[in-house]
């Protein structure tokens, strides 16, 4: 097996007296989809927020591409290529697809030695088309405000944006929530396509069918601790539920 993209070593996060994440050690390898499971309050979100730079771990280390990393802000993690797609997607619904893909990183035409800069709408549109095509996403038009798109289509825009900006690790928080069934399938297809392009995906979810449909490996947390880490083919729904409610624990000797 190749070297891990992300290595977490004994990561602990405490809020006052509460230990939200307790000595978690975890590796993510290139080209795999890893599901992160756990009941509400199990520490999934806290762990992920440490990885994406929202929180700073109290103890422990993280390695990205073999190098030790410490993120003090989300932008630090993003600059390394760790893209997190939250449920609210962080899109501007009043803007069109290219404007969203290039939000904050707009392409510009320069005139008079850079004195006057205008938006390069044409290149942003063609780049957006290329980015969406690479993921086999097809919209009738890209130049409508995305509030006219469905939830799944907006999810696709958020994913295309992350891919366009060379995401090296994609973290997705409940990506199929609030979506209709056909849309859920399309989002899962997108996740598989990301994996096939070599981008590892961490999938945070409550939806066990999604876990079995798309993930290669999984990790279960309970009360801040890692209680199981398995290949998806080697477990079952019943077993996962037992881990999630704390009835089973592999890590106790």
């Amino acid at each position: 097996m190749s070297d891990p993209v992300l290595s977490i070593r004994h990561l602990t996060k405490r809020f006052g007296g509460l230990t939200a994440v307790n000595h978690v050690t975890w590796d993510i390898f290139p080209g795999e989809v890893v599901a992160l499971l756990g009941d509400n309050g199990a520490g999934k979100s806290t762990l992920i927020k440490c990885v994406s730079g929202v929180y700073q771990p109290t103890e422990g280390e993280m390695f990205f591409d073999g190098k030790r990393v410490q993120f003090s802000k989300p932008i630090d993690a993003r600059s390394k290529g760790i893209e997190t797609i939250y449920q609210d997607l962080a899109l501007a619904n009043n803007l069109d697809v290219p404007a969203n893909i290039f939000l904050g990183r707009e392409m510009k035409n320069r005139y008079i030695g850079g004195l006057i800069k205008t938006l390069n709408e044409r290149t942003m549109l063609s780049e957006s088309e290329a980015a969406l095509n690479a993921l086999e996403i097809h919209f009738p038009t890209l130049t409508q405000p995305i509030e006219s798109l469905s939830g799944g289509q907006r999810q696709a825009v958020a994913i295309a944006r992350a891919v366009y900006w060379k995401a090296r690790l994609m973290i997705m928080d409940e990506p199929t929530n609030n979506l209709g069934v056909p849309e859920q399938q399309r989002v899962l297809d997108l996740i598989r396509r990301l994996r096939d392009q070599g981008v590892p995906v961490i999938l945070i979810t409550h939806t066990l069918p999604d876990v079995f449909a798309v993930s290669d490996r999984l990790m279960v947390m309970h009360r801040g601790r890692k209680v199981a880490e398995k290949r998806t083919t080697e477990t079952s729904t019943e077993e996962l539920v037992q881990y999630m409610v704390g009835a089973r624990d592999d890590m106790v000797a």
Partner: protein
Amino acid sequence: MILFFVISVPVFSSATFVTVRNSQNILVAITPVVLLGLGQTFVIISAGIDLSVGWVMSLASVLSALAIRDSYNIGAPIWLAVVLGLLAGTLGGGFVGFLNGLIIAKLKVPAFIVTLGSSFIVRGVALLMSENTTVIGLPDIRAYGNEALFYYVRGAGGGFYFLQRPPLPTDMLRQLDRILPWPVVLTAVVVGIAMFILHRTQFGRHTYAIGGNPEAARRAGIPVDRRIIAIYALSAATAGIGGFLSTLQYTAGSAVIGDPLLLSSIAAVIIGGVSLFGGAGSIMGTVIGSLIIAVLTTGLVMLNVQAFWQFIVVGAVVIIAVLIDQSRDLLVGRHERESET
């Protein structure tokens, strides 16, 4: 737009309305509303509000009058005095906006409160600086305020004149029309610049993004605080240009000129289709909204309707415009966004 025609058709069809002189008078009268509305458009698209622009315009009128008078008195040529007046009005206004933006962005005080408070402060400063009277004693700058790009003389021996006002005997002065007076030309230039900034530059794009979803803008790495400060500075600066223009037109600085225009300018922005929730609207809309208000008010006067009806009609049009905007939102499903977040 439909509204525009519904109201303007009966007005225009009355014969007295459609003269060159009337149309030019309307344009001149509406320039301050347009200028206040331009900055306000940026502010409201970013989901803010700027209640200080009326008094900022007054302050700028006083500042530019003082700058013109004092620089002329120490020997500056008249054109330089006028340019200094423009700078004093624009920069003085812009500075107030900069402070507004700073407090809104960095201290997270709601824009409504900040600009309400600063409008009182600016009012006091303007009255103090003008010593509570009109600033007079300016050099003769009427040429800049009242002359025009083109002239047209009706009747026999008339014709078009460019830039140069034709020499006329006094009995023919009534036949002289000024086409595109300088305040209108300057306002048109500012409109053009505002359109360019809002619709063609990264700054404009970020203004829409901040109004649409400030959290998304922040996560996308947009320097939201800096943009907000610049938006309020821009708003106050366009109000400052409006104050400068009023000084030119009346050859005097007035500390009360701008206040009645605040609500008209907000009305113009809203009639022009800018969403008060932020994220939608255009400069063209605001210009059209201003023209609708101008046509309404001037038109009603010309139809011999008592002046008080203007307020009633403009108020009704504002409410109808928002109703139309909301029903359009329902159709495209923008209500979903509000319930999701």
